[in-house]
């Protein structure tokens, strides 16, 4: 029916789809957030009351967008508008911090 090359191509396709499904199942099992983790996160946030994630600590506000660090470049905006581009987008120089 199909020649060798065509068969091989179709098998490659099927293999890729299967690999994608296996990857999804693996990630879902290992990396997805379990209920207990969500509970822990919620408990932690309600304990601290700090809204922001500890990801981008070079933003002026660091953990609560209404309270800036002493290293702020701009005056904070009264209506909490996000204007600080490097909070997620721009990578700064490695030596940006005062040592």
């Amino acid at each position, binding site marked *: 029916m199909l020649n060798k*090359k*065509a068969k091989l191509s179709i098998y490659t396709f099927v293999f890729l789809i299967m690999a994608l499904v296996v990857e999804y199942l693996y*990630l879902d099992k290992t*990396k*997805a957030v379990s209920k207990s983790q969500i509970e822990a*996160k919620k408990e932690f946030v309600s304990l601290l009351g700090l*809204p922001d994630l*500890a990801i981008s600590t070079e933003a002026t506000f660091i953990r609560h967008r209404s309270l800036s660090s002493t290293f702020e470049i701009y005056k904070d905006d009264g209506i909490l508008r996000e204007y600080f581009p490097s909070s997620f*987008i*721009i990578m700064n120089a490695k030596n940006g911090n005062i040592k």
Partner: protein
Amino acid sequence: MNRYINLYLLEYSINSLLRQKYKNIFITTILTFLIFILSSMFFITSSIKNELQYSVESLPEITVQKLISGKHYDIEVSRVDEILSITGVNDVTARVWGYYYFVNAGVNFTLVGIEQFEKQYKNSLQNLVDATKNFDESNAYVGQGVKEIMSKNYFKEYFNFILPDGSLKKIDIGGTFKSDTNLESNDVIVLSKENMRSIYGMSDEYATDIVVKVANPDEVVTVAAKIKLLYPDTRVITKNDLKVSYQNIFDYKSGVFLALFIVSLFTFFIIVFDKSSGLSSSERKEIGVLKAIGWSLDDVLKEKFYEGALISIFAYLLGIFLALGFVYGLGAPLLRDIFSGYSELKVAFELPFVFDIQTMVLVFFLSVPIYIASIIIPSWRVATMDADEVMR
């Protein structure tokens, strides 16, 4: 199966693609790379978005801060009782928290003080901490990132805080927060309020801000307005304000990604336009020969459709496969730096896996149909001519 997919045509398409092996491998690689970059970006943002959504609900409804000349000042603790007397208010807490700059490593820690004698706090802490010592309120409890930075600077058992008057205050490290909360707790040090006050040199009459819990969500705005009336010198932030500001971040970020997306798409469109403006002479000849040996227009277009679909769907699947592995498996090695900034206190970037079907669909419709169209349209132009005209 045969009713939907003509296997003979499929076989012909595959062989036709393999005849121009290098050109097609190049196109597949470019397309895969485009899909991979875009979906990686989207996966990271959707994970962060989800992470914030988990926690935003458990925040206090209202935060009250004192402002003088537009700057944040410590607020009087005596205001707690006044706010508590407003109808609808459940609970009011004066918080002591702030940032502590650790010069040796050039990082900001986030210090949070909690009430020593509040039972609920104690229970929560015990649930969340992997304790190394007996649970004691005079100890500090730190996030994973803080622990690593301190260890690097030889503070394994205790940490010396430098007080405003220049003297040192030694505080034992009681344990680290569990890695489940890493994205929230990485830069946090939790202490008792008394320790906090001595580290910051604050008197007992003042606090950093006041948080207010309101039982009925419909009353939050009213309560906030009343607090503002009561104390005109305060800034009153509701949970909703925070949600709006998050929405702003994501709109902003999505905007930046969209700009990137548009640039990539534009490039892609140029390739598509280039392809659709004409076929190479060998491709035209092929269609002419097929028409001459009796293929109908329908067959030619179907065969071309299979060609386009094979390449673009293969690239799409491979791109998504690689992006999932890159972001969740490897932790997004290069893109991570864009998101976490230059700070020394980097979070271990273990993003929670979220299967974002919307992103998948968006990327699919922006890549696959467009590529298929770019194959079919020029073929249709040629295939509608007479065979002898094409081959001449």
